[in-house]
């Protein structure tokens, strides 16, 4: 077998079959894929929740993960945030001609590992190869179905609810930017990329009054809070100093001129919880990440806005992020 992906491997013929058999099936095969037919019969799924997401990232391999881990964790996390147990996933690869087969296999292995954490299966897939230059290495699309066990929804958010964060923020965004800019730090930043089903499972089993969960991916914590504030026509009041941030992440943001609140996370979520249960939920979150924190509460003061309060008694709005993330000049 050749060392890199060729256009012939996407042709549906012998080479295509070989790529799938030798790499994809070898790691991901299960009773659903075994049939290798045009579609897969899933049987009954109760309270089915369905989601899809596409993944493109530079660099493909980063400290704390790679595009394979990211795509499975990302799609499964969307289900978990809805209170759903991830069950079945589809996997679509778009690969650039000339992409290294060893890299491809490394990505497939990460996918396998992340699937087992979520106790989920790949039930259908597709591989396309495009000419060199028409895509950046590899793109992955994942669609996922889960069974909803608890109804977490922003529709339940009310005034006086407490706002919690499951861990320190901006690690994924900071690690990607540092990687792209070639910034070397003494303590390299590791992305927070991880599957959240394990945490969510325990939250569901606790039976506590949890209203809504949202993973703070693109747009960061700022986007999640603003989306909720706008949808519920309520004010999200946050105490800025309570938002957990690691020193090295803050350092990168200082050097590059970024606001950590708009940088992406891939394994950190915001939760809104009835005020009576905030400490109990925090206790569960801290079992998984000791940096989890209660960061604020929901009020009616400025409907549809997020309010940041400083330690010296001043207040300002936190806006919805917009445009590209660009550093300030001087």
């Amino acid at each position: 077998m050749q060392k890199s992906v060729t256009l012939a491997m996407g042709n549906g013929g012998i080479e295509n079959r070989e790529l799938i058999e030798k790499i994809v099936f070898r790691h991901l095969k299960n009773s659903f894929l075994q049939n290798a037919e045009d579609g897969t019969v899933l049987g009954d799924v109760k309270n089915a929740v369905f989601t899809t997401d596409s993944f493109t990232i530079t660099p493909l391999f980063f400290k704390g993960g790679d595009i394979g881990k990211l795509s499975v964790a990302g799609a499964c996390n969307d289900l978990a945030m809805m209170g759903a147990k991830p069950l079945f996933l589809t996997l679509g690869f778009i690969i650039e001609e000339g992409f290294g087969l060893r890299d491809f296999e490394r990505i497939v292995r990460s996918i396998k590992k992340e699937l087992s954490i979520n106790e989920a299966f790949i039930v259908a897939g597709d591989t396309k190869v495009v000419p060199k230059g028409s895509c950046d290495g590899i793109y992955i699309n994942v669609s996922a179905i889960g069974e909803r066990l608890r109804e977490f929804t922003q529709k339940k958010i009310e005034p006086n609810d407490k706002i919690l964060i499951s861990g320190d923020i901006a690690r994924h965004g900071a690690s990607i930017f540092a990687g792209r800019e070639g910034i070397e730090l003494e303590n390299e930043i590791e992305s927070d990329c991880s599957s959240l089903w394990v945490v969510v499972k325990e939250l569901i089993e606790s039976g506590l009054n949890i209203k809504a969960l949202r993973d703070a991916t693109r747009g960061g914590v700022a986007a999640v809070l603003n989306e909720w504030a706008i949808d519920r026509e309520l004010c999200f009041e946050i105490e800025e100093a309570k938002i957990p941030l690691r020193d090295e992440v803050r350092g990168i943001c200082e050097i590059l001129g970024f606001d950590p609140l708009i940088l992406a996370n891939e394994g950190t979520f915001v939760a809104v919880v009835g005020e009576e249960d905030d400490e109990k939920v925090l206790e569960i979150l801290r079992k998984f990440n000791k940096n989890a924190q209660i960061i604020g509460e929901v009020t009616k003061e400025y409907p549809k806005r997020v309010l940041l309060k400083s330690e010296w008694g001043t207040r300002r709005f936190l806006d919805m992020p917009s445009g590209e993330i660009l550093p300030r000049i001087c």
Partner: protein
Amino acid sequence: MELRDFYEKFRDPETIKALAKEIEKESEKLNGVINIMEVCGGHTHTIMKYGLLQLLPENIDFIHGPGCPVCIMPKERIDHAYILAMQKDTILCTLGDMIKVPGSKGSLQDARSKGADVRFVYSPMDVLKIATENPDRKVIFFAIGFETTTPMTAALLEQVIKRDLKNVLFHINHVTVAEVMRELIDSRDEHIDSYNNRIDAFLGPSHVSVIAGSRIYEEFPKKYNRPVVVAGFEPVDVMEGVLMTVRQFVENRCEVEIQYKRSVTREGNKKAWEMIERYFEKRDLFKWRGLGNIPKSAWKLKDEFSRYDAEKVYDLPKEEIEDHKLCICGDILRGMAKPTECQVFGTACTPFKPLGSCMVSSEGACAAYYKYGNLL
């Protein structure tokens, strides 16, 4: 020393609160109001982001100045960037925010979506690498900024000459801070009402003075009776700068003082200054968006470096493009109006579709009011 040592103590809540208290105490001794212009957009950003206005007594107010190199760029020059970016086999490099500012043809982001190769660089020196890796393409550096970034552009040109790189060109938009300050309080243009400006004192940008020294501000206390305090960009710096300004009024002094002693001297960085003067000379006039033409307020490449000058190599349009009639940026910059007094603020003019200079970048006064809410 750790990275956090560079900012942590300058954001200490207790220090900020103590300074606020001290300013309040001192300001009780004042007769009337002091309007302090923070010249630099970096200061505006700090004031709004950290909510410092909310900590100040009623008789101290800020006027947000023109010190944001992206905001003051006239539309016709943004068009130059767009036109240059759209040239065949060309890579246009510039700094951060510049990419999203719209000219009459669109922004550099729009140019990129139409196929132009536009890159933002952290340091002008990154241009060297891009030029070496792309010997068959022209690499144009669209240079912006005050005295802070000018020496880096000069250093880039020095390297380009030294390495004999034939594919690098410059479009120079470097501006100077003292000339625009003077324009605000003493305009030569008889159509401009600078006589009624409400600026009582200046908070001088510290990064500019790291290069140019604090001496560039000496004319303001001497000739115009406006004290200047050169202050850093962290909230503690700004609060301390305000306190020093208030004390000058209370004690009846009027002088240039340095708050940012950790990097600023009277003379500045002589080497960097020599570098600027080796490659650049002053333009007779330079148009500032919102303020009009200001004499000797910007640099251009000296004639002997014409072959590196994109303004000379390419035939770029010279016509001026005016801002919307309802825009009152000039009055805002002279302290005669607040952003919220503008008819189009937040309606026709937003950061997504700026009509005037103050809404253009996050460092402009209107954009900062829009983004952070100016809560009191």
